[in-house]
Structures are given as C-alpha cells and as structure tokens.
C-alpha cells in the first residue's frame, strides 16, 4: 500500500514541524500549507487522502476552507481547534468536516483520527456493505436487525435510524444538526432535546453501563460518536 498523503493547513510553523517530524515515518507523506488559499491550491493539485485543517488561519476561517473543499471533494477533513473555538469547530463539522481534535493533542490521538478518516474514505467506494460490526454489536442494514452478543435488540424506528446514521461514519463525530436532519428531518434542527432523549433510550438498550459506554459516546456541545475498536 502506498503511503497516504496528508495535507496540513496550519499557520504555526512549530505545529507543522511537530507534525512533520512525527508523521513522516514512511506511512504518511506530508504536504504543508500555511494559509487557507495555499491549502486549497495544494488540495486541487495533489488530491490528499486526509486534510488536517487548523481553525485559526490568518487569511480565511476554517469553516470557509471546509466549505470550499466540500464543493468538489469528499476527502476526509480533520479540524484542529483550540479551546474557545467550540462554535467554529461545530460550524466546520456542520459544513462537512469529518472530525476534530482539540489542541493540544497527542500523537496517538491524531493517528487514531487519521486511521478512522482513511477507513471511511475506503468504505465510501463500496457502500453496500450490508452488515456493520463493532465489538459484539452487529447492525444488519439489509434486514434492519440489530444484535448484541448474538441476541436481537428491539429498537423503535427512530432508534434504529439514529444508530444506523451513526454507523455510517463509525468512529467519527456526527453533529447534533447532522443527526437531527438525517433522523427527524430538516424541520427539527433545533430539537436537540429529542436527540438527547432518544440517545438515552438507545444507550439503555445497548450499553451495559451507560456511564462507561462501549459504543455510543457523547461529545458534549458537539454531537455523538459511534466508537469502534
């Protein structure tokens, strides 16, 4: 397998240097851009496998970069945000970014996010995979049946839809807006409470200890994530 190409759009040289020295180990080929414009240009020419996008760029905000990338490519975008940029982070995710990392982050965290992102990109090719599995949870999309440790779990249509939506991008965070739009429809974008409550139901049915979830992870203020191993 050829090394994946990563495009880092980040204005701070130190962060780029850290990424360069820790990622360029043979598995990844690193492209760097210090402004949004250059990042967009580089993405057009090199078609990277994953984009790492800083939210505090000098020339344009990360939300704008995300939007312009999404006009023509489905390449996974991982947003790097600092504390205090929570709203921008959610906006970038709503605009089509796949995941986020809050600075400061550790290398293992970053590598895990990149792996999840590249896995999605590969799966997008053959979407028709009918059965999704993580741990002892199995979702059969063709039969609309969910089993936990071999035993069927009875879900309401909304619960099933919620779970299936999360399973479409396992490991990645889905924002409240994305989930509400997908499961309830665009008229319900402000009804976060529906989501919280149904998520609680789903968790009670699927988790042994809802406070130590194995599958359904809350990202407070952002959304939910289906954990994969």
């Amino acid at each position, binding site marked *: 397998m050829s090394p994946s190409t990563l495009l880092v759009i980040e204005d701070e040289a130190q962060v780029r240097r850290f990424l360069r020295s820790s990622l360029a180990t043979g598995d990844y080929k690193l492209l760097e851009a210090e402004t949004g414009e250059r990042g967009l240009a580089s993405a057009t020419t090199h078609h990277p496998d994953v984009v790492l996008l800083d939210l505090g760029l000098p020339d344009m905000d990360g939300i704008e970069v995300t939007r312009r990338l999404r006009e023509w490519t489905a390449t996974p975008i991982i947003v790097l945000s600092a504390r*205090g940029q929570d709203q921008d982070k959610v906006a970038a995710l709503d605009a089509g970014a796949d995941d986020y990392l809050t600075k400061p982050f550790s290398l293992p965290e970053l590598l895990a996010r990149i792996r999840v992102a590249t896995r999605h990109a590969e799966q997008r090719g053959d979407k028709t995979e009918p059965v999704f599995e993580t741990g002892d949870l199995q979702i059969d999309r063709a039969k609309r049946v969910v089993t936990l440790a071999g035993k069927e779990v009875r879900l309401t249509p*909304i619960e099933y839809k919620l779970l299936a939506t999360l399973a479409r991008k396992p490991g990645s965070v889905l924002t409240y807006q994305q989930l509400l739009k997908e499961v309830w429809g665009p008229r319900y974008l402000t009804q976060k409470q529906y989501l*919280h*409550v149904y*998520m*609680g139901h789903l968790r009670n049915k699927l988790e042994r200890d809802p*406070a130590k979830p194995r599958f359904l992870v809350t*990202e407070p203020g952002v959304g939910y994530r289906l954990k994969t191993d």
Partner: protein
Amino acid sequence: VGKPTHARWRDLVRTSFLEEIVRRSGEIDVYVISGEEGAPARRAVARTGERVPWSSYGASVAIAVLSTGVAWVLFGRRQLPDVVMIYLLGIILVSLRFGYGPSVCAAVLSVLMLDFFFVPPYLSFAVSDFQHVVTFAVMFVMAVVISRLNLRVRLQADAARYGERRTSELYAMTRELADTRATRNLAAVAVEHLHDVFDANIALLLEGPDGQLDGAGAGEFAFAPEGKEREVVDWVWSHDKPGGLGTDTVPSAKALYLPMRGAQVRVGVLGVVPSDPRRFVDAEQRARLDVFAGQIASALERARLAELAQQAHIQVEAERLRSALLSSVSHDLRTPLSVITGAASALVQTDGGLSADARQYLAQTILEESQRLNRLVRNLLDMTRLSSGVVRITKEWQPVEGIVGAVLERLEEPLRGRTVETNLPQDLPVVPVDGVLLEQLLTNLLENAVKYSPAGTPIAIGARREGSDFVMEIADRGPGVPPDSAQKVFEKFYRAPGAGGGGGAGLGLAICRAIVEAHGGRIWVEPRPGGGAAFRFSIPIEGSPPVLALEETA
C-alpha cells in the same frame, strides 16, 4: 426677530416685544421675519366638549316643539304654571343630553312659544300683562342656570376622566420603564409610549461613553435629526434649554427638543415631532411632555448608573484576576516550564550519553509537566471566560450518563490504576443542564479527586434525584477537607495548605462553583463516611422536560 402674530389691539394695551426691541436697539439693525401664517392657536385637546354639531340644535328645536304639543294636550291654556314646568323639563333634557348651547337655544324658543301659544293675546308675541313678562324672565333665568350647572358637572367629569387618563398613561410608561433594564430597551419603551400619548414621532439622543450624543430610539415612530435639526439638538444639549418648534430658539424646526435631566446628570435630548405642529403651544400639553421627559430621564439615568456599577464590578473583578494571574504566572506556570526546559535540554545536549531508560524518563516528565501546564492554562482561560460573562449557558434537557461517560473517557489517562465506581440509577431523570459546562464541572471535580487522593485509591460517582433537585457526588478516599476550609476551597486561588506538589492555580473548584451557580444550584463538600471527601452539587430541575411524540415499538 419673529413677526408678532397676536391681534393688534393687544399692542395698544401692552408695549409689544417687537416695539421694545426696536426702541432699545440703538445702532443695531433689526430684521423682522414673518413665520408661517397659521391658524390661531387652539387647544389641541378639546376639553370643553367638542364643537356641538348642528343636529343638536335641531334636536333642541324639536324638543321645544314637542314640549309645546305635550303642554297643549295636557293642560291647554288654563294652567300656565304647569305649562311652564313642561317647558322647563324639555330644557333640562336638552341640557343633559346636548350641552349648553342647544339648551340656551331651547330656552329662548320655549319662552317665545310660551308667549305665542299660551299667553294672551294668543298667536302673537305681544304681551298684555306685565306679570307674564316676569314669568318669562324667571323661566329663562332658571333654564340658563340649570344649563350652566349641568355644563359645570359635565366639565368636571370630563376633567376627572382626562386627568385619570393622563395619570394612567404616565403610570403605564413608568411601570414599563421600571421593568426594563438595558438602556436600548428603555429607549424603545420610551419612544413607543411618547408616540402613543402625544401622537408624535420621537427622537431620543443619549450621551454615549465618548460624551457625544447618539441616536438611541429605533422603530417605526423614531426619527433621526439631521442637518439643521441636528444643530438644534446640539444647541439644546450645550445650553441645557428647550429649543426648536414652539420655543424662542429656531421655532421653524420640525421638532421640539428638550434636554433630559435625571436627578444628578443630564442623559440626553428628547425630540418630539407632533403630527399637529401646534400641539405644544398648549401650556398644559407642554407641561405634560416635561413630566414624561423627566420620568424617562430618570429611568435612563438609573439604567446608566446600574451599567456603570456593573462595569466597575467587572473591572474590579478583572483586576483581581489579573493580579492573581500574575502571581500564578510567576510561580505555578514557571514550575512546569522549568522542568520541561530542563528535561528537554538534557535530551537535546547529552545526545547519546543517556541510557534509553533515562531518555524515556525525561520524555515522560516533559509529557506530564506539559499536561499540567495545559490544565493550568485551561483553568485560567475558563475562569476568565466564566467571570467575564463570555460563556453563555444553554440548558437542554438531557440524560447525564452520556456526559459522565465522555468525562471518564477523556480522563482515562489520569484515572488509570483506579477503580471508578459509577452509581447512576436506571431511572435517573433528564436534567436541564448545559452539556459542555457540566462536562467541565465533572472534569474538574474528578481531576481534583485524583490530585488530592493517593494513587490507586477508588473514586465514586453518584447521582440521584432529591425532591426537585438533581444531586451528583464525586467522592474520594483521600485525607478529606477540614471543616474550617470547607467553604474556602471553592474560592478563587485558594489552595489547601500542604497540597504543594500537584499545585494548580487554585481555580478548579472555583470554576465548579461558577458553573453550578450559573445553573441556579449550589456546591459543597462533606466528609465521606469511611474517610475521604465527598463533593456534592445540586441543580434544580425546573419546568418539565419536552414531551416527545410517542413512538410505537418496532
């Protein structure tokens, strides 16, 4: 000088203002400018009753005729006193129903008809007996007196009703002003009421922080003085006197401008463009406008003083935070920084000379210290944001299990080697909380527990409903908190004596308290049975969770 508009005869009685000026001007040329010739000033609000319509006079004639008919049928020509009574009754009815003018008209008609039909010589206005002239006079005087009395009663009722309306209008505005906080909202309330009461468009210009006047009122009834109007505003502001329409200064302006004075300071200028430009010629209306302006001014002044006090409070708080931050920077931030610098320079300079174990140890130290630094900076940032009001709380009904889960996952590293016992009942209610803030709250409490209890000791997280409160508890098996510092631990920059080593900035629990209080709850610490500290907080469960459309089980 404006050309006088009053009647010439008044100049005969009093020396006119104009004459006076011309006489005393000496060398100075005096130009007389004529204003717009308008209708003579009339009271804007009719108080002596509206102009009586012609139909009322018609009715008074009809009633006089009717009285004649009734008297004729009942009494004929024999009982003159009874006939007079019938006429008087008719006149009273007219004066009650149609007012003074028509009743005088009815009185005149009645006397004429009495003479014509009932007093000999009949069907003639001539009077043969002088006694009848007296009867006519008495009847007429009585009719007029009764009409006057009725008129006065009516005027008093009108005045009372009018006074009551005035008071209630003023009261309505004052009450709404009292309920309104921010200056901008006050301005909107004032503009609306002034428009309703005075049928006018309103300009409200308030002194800004830079000492300049800025337009504050907005909405469909607001107008913004520009050009010449603005000059009048500035004149009014600098001279602290009324100007514009209906005053001696630039009476040709569209609006009447009044300076607005509170109890201590001036707050701005009020401009009023009445739909009837003559409205404020009426002294009563002017006085009333002054009363309204005074109320608005004192409300605005109150709001401004409150805002100043608030700002001063924030400044003091920020100042305190800044100085505490400085002392933090000098000590707490430097410790991890010097450790990191030392360890990193050792790695860089003694390249090759260190054993793999030593290198690993140094790298581990750098990692731990930078995490500590990160925690410190994060707390300082959070505290600043919480106390400066940047963070806005958005409560949503949600189950807390997910948030507990998120926190435990995030703190996986520092919690390694400990058992975390979660005790969340299945039937835990959904709670109205801000998810992000609750996460931060639990994170800080858990980090605190980790910091102050020996490695490897268990930590317990519990939650339950107590009446209308949601209560959570994070309990450790550390040394506990001595009773005399149970309150102090939640204060900013407080550090438990002897905590030394793991030292943060002493902000973690202060942040917790700020978050809990933002939810309307409280936080406290108790000794845990069997040893250790139990930090508890309660958040009121107010209102009821949203009702979800029921869904059938698939």
